[in-house]
């Protein structure tokens, strides 16, 4: 059973556009939600993370929106650049800190 559902599987955006990736979860024991960026041949790298007590967190061009009641969260990449082309994973971590679940990933391509 997939603990964290991620969509879309792939996304193509024009340079300067907004990229939006969505994730959903069911387990209310999750209380920390990071996003990772992964380039081919590399390990994932933490991009931004949020706790459920806030509805939005912004770092530069990256914003997480969090809807606790709907158990959904999303990553918005503003002014998308070709260098943002990568695979993005959402994740959820339990309040005990020993259960980690990643989404299935979104392959983002930003066209110049």
């Amino acid at each position, binding site marked *: 059973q997939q603990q964290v559902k991620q969509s879309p599987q792939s996304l193509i955006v024009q340079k300067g556009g907004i990229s939006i990736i969505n994730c959903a979860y069911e387990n209310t024991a999750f209380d920390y939600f990071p996003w990772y960026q992964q380039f081919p041949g590399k390990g994932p790298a933490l991009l931004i993370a949020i706790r459920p007590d806030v509805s939005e967190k912004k770092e530069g061009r990256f914003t997480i929106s969090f809807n606790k009641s709907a158990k959904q969260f999303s990553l918005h990449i503003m002014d998308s650049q070709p260098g943002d082309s990568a695979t993005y994973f959402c994740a959820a971590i339990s309040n005990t800190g*020993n*259960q980690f679940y990643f989404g299935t990933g979104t392959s983002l391509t930003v066209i110049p």
Partner: protein
Amino acid sequence: EAGVAQSPRYKIIEKRQSVAFWCNPISGHATLYWYQQILGQGPKLLIQFQNNGVVDDSQLPKDRFSAERLKGVDSTLKIQPAKLEDSAVYLCASSLRPGGRDTQYFGPGTRLTVL
């Protein structure tokens, strides 16, 4: 600051053979994680160590997988015997503290192909 080191980077074996992967975390990081990433999927946590003790290994297939971190620094992950479905990238990550709130730094991974 040196990153997480893993070796080998690539390994090809036949099914039923054994294989071992090595990880050296960032200096001073007490927590070490092993993940399995099957092509087209997100990483799946196999085991989490705090120093040389196991925090969680609930998703480690213990009939064939084993991991150790004897001196609380380097770690090895072993598969014995390997199956075709074990073909994946095995990622090692480390963080200062356990619990997932500290940033995890990932190594480049070991790509395993089981024929």
